[in-house]
């Protein structure tokens, strides 16, 4: 069953020319950009090495860091919730939000992983994805195809069609600027109407509790600042000791996403002084959902070093054909297949683990030097060993 469903999707995707063109265009742009960026800015590798050390150390001390963060949050009047499971996180967030609310969201994989949007909508709330790519995916009722650029599989024609279907507005598909203006205009209204903002995290610092968010569109700033309630949702592997560390993680991730600089590097500290303009109520939801098992797994722990730059996805041989249809939920390609073996289970992830060609392009580019093919092979062995 798991396999049939999966392979059917793969095979459909292979035949979807529009999808393929979108992915093709994105991966080509990425590959052209990244090799140039890295050769012109070799210091990026130095950042990466340092971040690998920071993350390694953080994973080794994860239990202490979580406890420490909880303490620091409580000292600052931040509501801290450790969710052992996705279900627990969902329940907590649904409780905070209630019903009849308007919610603006930044793009966040962990909320995607727990189907948060659907849950909140079911409870009678209005949820708006504010990242334009994610917004398109939301309108289409589809799933994101990349962690940095979720809607690469949507052509401007498809987007124009979506806007017509959903809002009854007509756009010339070549008028990309017009469509962007329309969407941002629509979202601008929502920011000021919103009761709750939900953001993810590139990294979280513990000593001075703060979330680092790197983005290009400026939307996250609005989500952080306008609604009166802010919920930060992050998986536990995002924790690093200091603010300096957290900033380095964000900077490195954006480098390997092929941005020399991005539009915004936001550091949002959980300080009381936000109350004037920013949120009055802040919740931090730390999600485990199988990650502590990953972090402590002697064969696969390296996968938790991932800083979600998305490089390995763009360069992956299989991904370049079928995009995020290969991988785990919300977390494409090989690294996604690994992590989802822990967050969703080995059984469920097996077809994805076997989509990997073990060719190692991902390993060549990964700033954290994660031996993705090696871990995939070992997880296959684990599954086969249990036969």
């Amino acid at each position: 069953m798991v396999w049939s469903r999966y392979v059917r999707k793969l095979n459909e995707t292979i035949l979807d020319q529009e999808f393929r063109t979108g992915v093709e265009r994105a991966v080509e742009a990425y590959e052209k950009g990244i090799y140039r960026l890295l050769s012109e800015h070799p210091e990026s590798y130095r950042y990466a090495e340092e971040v690998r050390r920071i993350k390694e150390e953080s994973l080794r001390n994860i239990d202490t860091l979580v406890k420490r963060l909880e303490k620091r949050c409580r000292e600052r009047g931040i509501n801290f919730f450790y969710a052992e499971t996705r279900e627990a996180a969902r329940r907590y967030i649904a409780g905070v939000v209630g019903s009849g609310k308007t919610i603006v969201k930044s793009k966040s994989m962990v909320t995607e992983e727990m189907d948060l949007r659907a849950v909140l909508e079911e409870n009678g709330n209005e949820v708006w994805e504010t990242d334009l790519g994610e917004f398109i995916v939301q309108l289409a009722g589809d799933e994101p195809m990349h962690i940095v650029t979720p809607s690469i599989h949507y052509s401007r024609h498809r987007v124009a069609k979506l806007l017509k279907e959903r809002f009854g507005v007509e756009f010339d598909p070549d008028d990309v600027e017009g469509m962007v203006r329309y969407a941002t205009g629509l979202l601008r209204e929502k920011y000021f109407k919103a009761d709750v903002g939900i953001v993810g995290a590139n990294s979280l610092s513990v000593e001075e509790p703060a979330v680092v968010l790197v983005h290009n569109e400026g939307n996250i700033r609005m989500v952080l600042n306008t609604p009166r309630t802010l919920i930060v949702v992050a998986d536990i592997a995002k924790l690093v000791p200091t603010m300096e560390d957290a900033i380095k993680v964000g900077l490195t991730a954006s480098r390997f996403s092929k941005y020399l600089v991005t539009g915004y590097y936001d550091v949002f500290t959980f300080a009381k002084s936000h109350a004037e303009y920013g949120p009055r109520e802040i919740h931090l939801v730390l999600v485990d959902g199988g990650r502590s098992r990953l972090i402590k797994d002697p064969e696969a722990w390296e996968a938790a070093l991932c800083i979600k730059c998305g490089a390995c996805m763009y360069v992956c041989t299989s991904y370049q054909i079928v995009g995020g249809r290969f991988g785990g939920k919300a977390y494409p390609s090989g690294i996604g297949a690994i992590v989802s073996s822990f967050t969703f289970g080995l059984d469920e992830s097996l077809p994805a683990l076997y989509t990997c060609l073990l060719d190692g392009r991902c390993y060549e580019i990964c700033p954290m030097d994660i031996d993705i093919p090696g871990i995939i092979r070992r997880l296959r062995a684990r599954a086969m060993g249990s036969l």
Partner: protein
Amino acid sequence: MEVPRNLTLLRDNVVETMHIFRLPLGRCSSWCDGEPGDTILYTGCLYQTMEIVLRRGRFLDMVTKDPDRDFMARLAKIFMSLGPVYRLFIDPGEGRVYNLPRKALNILRRLGYKVGCLREEPYPGMLLYEFGFDREFREYAARVYEYLRDRGVKRLVTIDPHVYELMKYIYPEYVPGYDLEVVNYIDLVLEALRDGRARLRNPGYSVTYHDPCHYSKSRHRRIIDEPREIIKSSGVELREPLRTRRFSMCCGGPIETYYSRLSREIAKRRLAELREAGGDKILVACPICLVSFESVGGRVMDLIEFLDENLVVGDGVE
């Protein structure tokens, strides 16, 4: 745990017969003249197996097109147990790909290397390793090692990236006391070219070289510049495809067994990219790449063929 039957089918074939398609081991090495020696050319039956994949593609496709074709895999299992009838059907004889080891052996001997071979060559179990049948692989590798040692083998010369990596770097991790020396023929050829024992004549065409993954992205040893040095020494113009060297693109072969559609799509895309580079010939250095591209309509040349065609030993008079 739900596991596609075509994976376990191949596992059982290997474990039971030491051949992926249950052929007698002699069918791996009719190119071998039986010359004994502690140094042998060890092909792991890879080129020979890929001849089957190339020529019996239609049949294999029925079994392997999708991982959920359990029924076909079951039928195939019954068919494969028919012994002689099945063997007559599956054995494609000794075509071009099958015979590349013969050419390789000949090249090595012309260069003055004393290389023997085995009349019955076992498959090294790469599939078990890559598919994650670790327990089986551990036992199997020990068997292969013993098999080779019993025949006095001390040194293997390999002619493809997969067998090379497996025998040189993976076997030692799995087989206690493993002490076979593993050499790549590319190094031997390069050595001979460098010290002037031989040279390559310029065939007058240009070539685009496709790096096989397990030479170019190996965690163990990268063989990226060596084949280029060999090719360039002939004076031909060497073209690089868009994705090359460390970032060369896989041919799609490794998932052919269960996601054959995706595998083919990958092959087609890479083939188009290689063609775009504009060389008169596309050069590969791995039987899996060779067959992946040829299965989707490509016409490519193996490095062995390039050498066979253009190698001049000594002053050209042998």
